[in-house]
């Protein structure tokens, strides 16, 4: 699910899932290195603010083969935030939020970041409109 961007250069992804497990169990799966390796990647993770780790894999078209991360926030068993640098551009931010739910818990993963200014506007507005706006801007300057 993609929510409307807050600015034309922001993207904001939200993945939500209800899990039939208590928050403490999900928290352990998210923060214990052995558990992480069983569903995510075999990373050298430590649940410590400031800890850095790298996700690596074979480079494929579209991915350079590594993503550098840092633990920014830890609030057991509810919230964890990573910086997530998967391109040569600015770091993006990934947060994991666990809230109680009658069936177990609700997990929300948010991924926020920026792309170069106007890029999403270019995509959304279409080329011709953008060209018109540029023409007007240049005419005014």
């Amino acid at each position, binding site marked *: *699910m*993609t929510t409307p961007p807050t600015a034309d250069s922001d*993207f904001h*992804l939200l*993945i939500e*899932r209800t*899990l*039939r*497990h*208590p928050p403490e*169990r*999900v928290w352990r*799966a*998210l923060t214990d290195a052995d*558990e992480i390796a*069983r*569903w*995510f990647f075999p990373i050298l993770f430590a649940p410590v603010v400031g800890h850095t780790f790298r996700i690596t*894999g074979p480079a*494929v*078209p*579209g*991915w*350079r083969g590594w*993503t550098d991360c840092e633990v920014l926030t830890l609030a057991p068993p509810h919230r964890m935030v990573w910086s*997530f640098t*998967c*391109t*040569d*551009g600015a770091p993006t931010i990934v947060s994991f939020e666990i809230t109680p739910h009658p069936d*177990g818990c609700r*997990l929300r*993963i948010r*991924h926020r970041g920026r*792309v*170069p*200014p*106007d*890029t*999403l506007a*270019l*995509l959304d507005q279409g*080329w*011709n409109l*953008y*060209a018109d706006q*540029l*023409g007007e801007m240049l005419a005014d300057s």
Partner: protein
Amino acid sequence: MARPHKPTTETGDVFQALADPNRRQLLAYLAAGERGVQDVASYFPISIAAVSQHLQILHTAGLVRRREAGRRRLYSVDPDGLGAVRTWIDGLTRFWETAVDRLEAHLDDDAPNGGQ
């Protein structure tokens, strides 16, 4: 498992190409139609050499197309190039969806009695 995707071609990076405001203006100018290097250079207050370099970067990143017409080299927008940015964002969504699928399967496997 899905990987976090970056919108690259073989050698070019769409984000790097778009990071420069001059190049975004060149791109928007070309959106109006196919143009030669001279046309572009006469429209923008930068040298032909600089225009050529910017166009080369846009071309490598897959944002513009290039063709030879006699002795002229003509550039036009490649709409698929910008689409790569959207594809990259969609790829990130799939990456996390896949991760959560695997997390859920792991938790369920680990708790045969219903998760508690």
